[in-house]
């Protein structure tokens, strides 16, 4: 609208008329698209989401009972990083996010390539891979807890057929978090796959024909066309799974409750534990740390990946 008005500004004699016109169109805009349409969404968003987010920065600095709060400075944050049990959550959160998003990128891309090739059962396979995305996380967690049981679980029984003695996946501190991360990948890879399918299908066929003319094979097609040109999909998958991975709570909580001990706790599960224990200030400090971690990783990542997207 404004651009148009500026372009039309020619002689000095027209200026007054132009201004009048601009004012009229602004007025018309105000009538056609009134800010009142924002109102319901804005009220709910501000009150329920934004106010708590901002208040968290204050309450994180207090000892808090929900009714009254005493200012204690940075004590909560010091506790968070001084206590081994809490610090581990910080490391675990990063580990979990990196493992899940890395695997979702690799497996999602492979499945995406497979499911856009000329398979006869393509439709069926796409559905099968995608369906876990729609199943409740708690249900998935309970099911896999059963499948991962040390002696009777299906996974270890299958491994036993090959003579491998599988560990107690969820009961061993070394494998607990990784097992949950793998189940997360199982549940979420279908989403990455459909993003890749959409990305791959939007690549113009000409590029593949060009590779064929040059006598390139399947590997060339993948390496020089599919991989670079599905970059926007990779970008989305990385950002989304990072956001999801850093915030992940429900799967960890249903499968291990952060255990054994505190070895598979993440920031989100610590927030819940401290809340249950009545340490509301500490829990909120966890929330602030999570906020900082998420923005400190996702915003630069978004910037960096976005820049690359332009370059390609």
């Amino acid at each position, binding site marked *: 609208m404004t651009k148009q008005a500026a372009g039309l500004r020619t002689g000095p004699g027209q200026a007054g008329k132009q201004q009048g016109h601009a004012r009229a169109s602004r007025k018309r*805009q105000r009538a056609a698209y009134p800010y009142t349409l924002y109102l319901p969404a804005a009220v709910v*968003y501000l009150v329920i989401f934004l106010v708590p987010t901002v208040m968290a920065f204050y309450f994180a600095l207090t000892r808090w009972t929900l009714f009254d709060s005493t200012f204690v400075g940075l004590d909560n944050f010091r506790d968070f990083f001084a206590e081994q049990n809490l610090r581990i959550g910080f490391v675990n959160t990063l580990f979990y996010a990196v493992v899940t998003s890395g695997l979702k990128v690799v497996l999602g891309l492979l499945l995406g390539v497979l499911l856009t090739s000329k398979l006869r*059962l393509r439709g069926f396979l796409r559905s099968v891979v995608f369906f876990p995305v729609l199943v409740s996380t708690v*249900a998935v967690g309970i*099911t896999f807890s059963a499948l991962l049981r040390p002696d009777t679980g299906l996974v270890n029984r299958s491994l036993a057929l090959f003579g491998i003695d599988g560990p107690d996946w969820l009961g061993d501190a070394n494998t607990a978090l990784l097992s949950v991360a793998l189940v997360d990948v*199982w549940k979420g890879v279908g989403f990455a796959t459909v993003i890749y399918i959409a990305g791959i299908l939007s690549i113009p066929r000409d590029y593949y024909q060009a590779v064929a003319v040059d006598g390139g094979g399947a590997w060339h097609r993948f390496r020089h066309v599919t991989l670079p040109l599905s970059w926007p999909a990779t970008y989305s998958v990385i950002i989304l799974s990072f956001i999801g991975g850093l915030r992940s709570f429900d799967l960890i909580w249903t499968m291990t409750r952060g255990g054994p001990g505190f070895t598979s706790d993440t920031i989100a599960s610590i927030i819940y534990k401290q809340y249950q224990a009545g340490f509301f200030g500490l829990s909120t400090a966890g*929330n*602030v740390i999570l906020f900082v971690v998420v*923005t400190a990783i996702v915003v630069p990542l978004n910037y960096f990946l976005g820049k690359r997207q332009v370059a390609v």
Partner: protein
Amino acid sequence: MRALKRVGAEGIALVLATVIFLVPFSFMLLTAVKDEVQAEDLDFAWPSEWPVVQNFTEVIEARDYVLLRAFVNSTVLTVASVALIVVFAAMAAFVLQRRAGKVSKLADFLVLSGLIIPPAIVPTIWLLKGLGLFKTMPGLILVEVAFGLSYAVLLFRAFIAAIPRELDEAAMIDGCTGLTLFFRVIFPLLRPVTITVILTTSVTVFNDFVNPLYFLPGDENATVQLTLYNFQSQYSTQWNLLFMDIVLITIPPLLLFVFFNRKIVAGMTAGAIKG
């Protein structure tokens, strides 16, 4: 030879996908229809008896019909929050797409923040308590709306961008402005994307575990996901009932998936790539 190779590769892909993705689901089904003793083994043995109806009635009757109440609660929660999200997000997306300026820039920023920022749990509880909405269904509905708006706004905005402005102008000549313009002219045109938003958001809200856990605890208000969580501790010995519960609460998303598979996938990818 080549055809043979392809059939071979296809076979391997099929077998792998079946094993990896269908085995857990068949395990759920199998365990749900076994009797209590056999279910305890948590293995893949074929059920020796099929107490399907008995398991079904038992899980329904458990704890004074908590599952039925949970289904009612989840339905109320899902329908109400999805309805509010659709109307609020569509209205906001319309102004956001049509009217450039500082306000829209701010709104844009807030939409992205809503997608990225993890909600601050305890301050939200504190606030809901202050409003008298903590542990109430309306409170939880508002929470779901606040957390679900951003994604819906993105989808709606992308769709509205494809509706020509000339249409607004024509409607304005006929005297439609503001609310009437939106509800009588624009909103009916948003039907395809509205369906997409309804589908994806209802799956999300119905499957939500974290928000009910924090903001609506307690057996009388339980949502279906919380019954699972509660049964998990209560039924550590009655796996058949636990898995019957899992099967029952997986049916609604399964039905949506069977009928609207394409729409759901399209909606999710559109939202993801534009986000």
